[in-house]
């Protein structure tokens, strides 16, 4: 822990809730805001058994609001051609239930929400991939968005520069799964599964994934293709194509990205100085145990950072491959 000057700035800790129980855990563990999605393809974590019904969202709002915690609803996939009703219904339900903000990516949906529900606070999803001031200012001007979730492709100085050129809040990812791609533009998994996170809310849909134990080795298959094989003592990762191991020139290795997770506890003071307003913890698909531990640790780390200290918490037990990274925030490769 190192001492720095305390800041009077606020930093909102935005935490994942894949289920009602996870929401209660996040609220009790110290979240300032919780985000979730409906149980359908309108959100980018459309996993089986996960997410909220309309009634569950109403109960979640009561629980969170009674404890002074905000509720943000993600409707952040792109409306499918010819069947936009679920997305429109999701926005209408969010407005009716009075969520604190709705997280959108689709331009048509942003336009609908802005015109139909002007009282509804709009956040621009990371899925919109708005990574420069001109784009963000366009969304702010046209749809009155109040916050942008920045893609995980920017360095800390780039985030600072963007904050100096825009008048809305910025939210950045703080912990959890990493994508090597610009969000909202990745179709890698759809090449072999036919489904993508942008349109269907799933990257490597569970129906296409199988794990095969070969002796002491673990083989991961996606849509019939073997994409990774872990040795007896090797920590495993998610079955995504971007984290598959491929053989090039006879050497198997990670072409896109190793199994690793983002963790910014060691650069929180720099992110605060760069002018961010909120930190997002990834992991609506993870368990209550994950939510509890990560939120509690980030609460401590954020409070320490705001009082001028640096509290680094590795959380290797929860990370993919047992590794942490600050990803593009400390980009050294370009």
């Amino acid at each position, binding site marked *: 822990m190192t001492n720095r000057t305390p800041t009077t700035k606020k930093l909102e800790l935005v935490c994942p809730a894949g*289920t009602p129980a996870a929401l209660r855990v996040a609220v009790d563990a110290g979240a300032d805001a919780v985000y979730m999605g409906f149980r359908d393809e309108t959100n980018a974590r459309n996993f089986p058994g996960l997410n909220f019904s309309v009634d569950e969202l109403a109960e979640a709002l009561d629980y969170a609001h009674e404890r002074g915690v905000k509720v943000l609803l993600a409707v952040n996939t792109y409306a499918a051609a010819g069947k936009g009703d679920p997305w429109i219904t999701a926005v209408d339900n969010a407005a009716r239930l009075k969520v604190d903000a709705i997280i959108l990516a689709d331009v048509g949906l942003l336009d609908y929400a802005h015109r139909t529900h002007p009282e509804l606070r709009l956040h621009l999803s990371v899925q919109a991939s708005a990574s420069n001031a001109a784009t963000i200012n366009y969304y702010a001007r046209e749809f009155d968005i109040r916050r942008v979730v920045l893609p995980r492709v920017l360095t800390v100085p780039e985030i600072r520069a963007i904050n100096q050129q825009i008048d809305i809040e910025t939210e950045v990812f703080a912990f959890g799964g990493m994508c090597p791609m610009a969000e909202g533009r990745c179709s890698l998994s759809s090449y072999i599964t036919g489904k993508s996170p942008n349109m269907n809310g799933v990257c490597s849909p569970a129906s296409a994934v199988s*794990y095969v134990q070969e002796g002491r080795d673990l083989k991961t298959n996606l849509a019939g293709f073997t994409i990774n094989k872990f040795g007896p003592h090797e920590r495993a990762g998610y079955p995504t194509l971007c984290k598959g191991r491929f053989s090039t020139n006879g050497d198997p290795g990670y072409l896109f990205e190793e199994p690793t997770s983002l963790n910014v506890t060691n650069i929180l003071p720099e992110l605060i100085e760069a002018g961010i307003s909120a930190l997002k913890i990834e992991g609506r698909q993870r368990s209550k*145990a994950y939510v509890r531990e990560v939120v509690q640790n980030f609460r401590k780390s954020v409070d320490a950072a705001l009082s001028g200290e640096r509290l680094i918490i590795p959380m290797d037990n929860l990370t993919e491959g047992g590794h942490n990274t600050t990803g593009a925030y400390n980009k050294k490769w370009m």
Partner: protein
Amino acid sequence: MIYQATPAENFTPLLVAGLMIRPLPTAPLDRLLSYIARRIQDNHPAILERLRPLAGTRFLICPTDLPYEIELVLGEDRVDCHLRRSHQPDTEVTAANVTISGSFLSLVDMMDGKQDGDGLFFSRSLTVTGDTEALLTLRNAVDSDDIDLRAEILARFGPLKTPAEIFMSAGDRLYHRLARDMSVISRAITGPLSDRCEDLEQENQGLRDRLGRLEQTSVKTRNRLQVLGRKIAS
């Protein structure tokens, strides 16, 4: 799934207890398990709602440190849960759609919401095979509500709940004390072998690095020779 209690992390009081109770009939434990499953269904209907798409799916849960396995069969509006001895070669068993294996306490902690399933999977403490979509649905459904397994078990004791609770807490303390002691014994036995393995691994890595460097030098030399050969030929 075969009852396999070989890794050092499985050397726990449960392993010993499992060996001791192995000759006993399974019926009382099976009844207790069915009772707990019914209680969970009655007290957590939202979980059943999330499991509805899985009607007909058969799960096999295999605690690697106990001589039993648990079969979970999902119906339209009910869950049937049964205990059976693991590895019964003469018994006719319907194949499971999903098999989940891990230490008993990891599995219980995961169900109680104290352990993260993905973290256990990453660390290879949990093994899963079969229908991944069904597995994820079950995991998410169980995680969507707060299940207190201890309270569900205690409810079975009716008016004797309080003494049962005292007995359970004492058992819990005893288990943790025994687990600590057995861990010390395990480390004392496997420590020297583990040190030797680490030494060998380091030596092996050193040799691999040296071989890699030699291969690089060999490629460079071959390239130089080819260039030289072309120069001489011209």
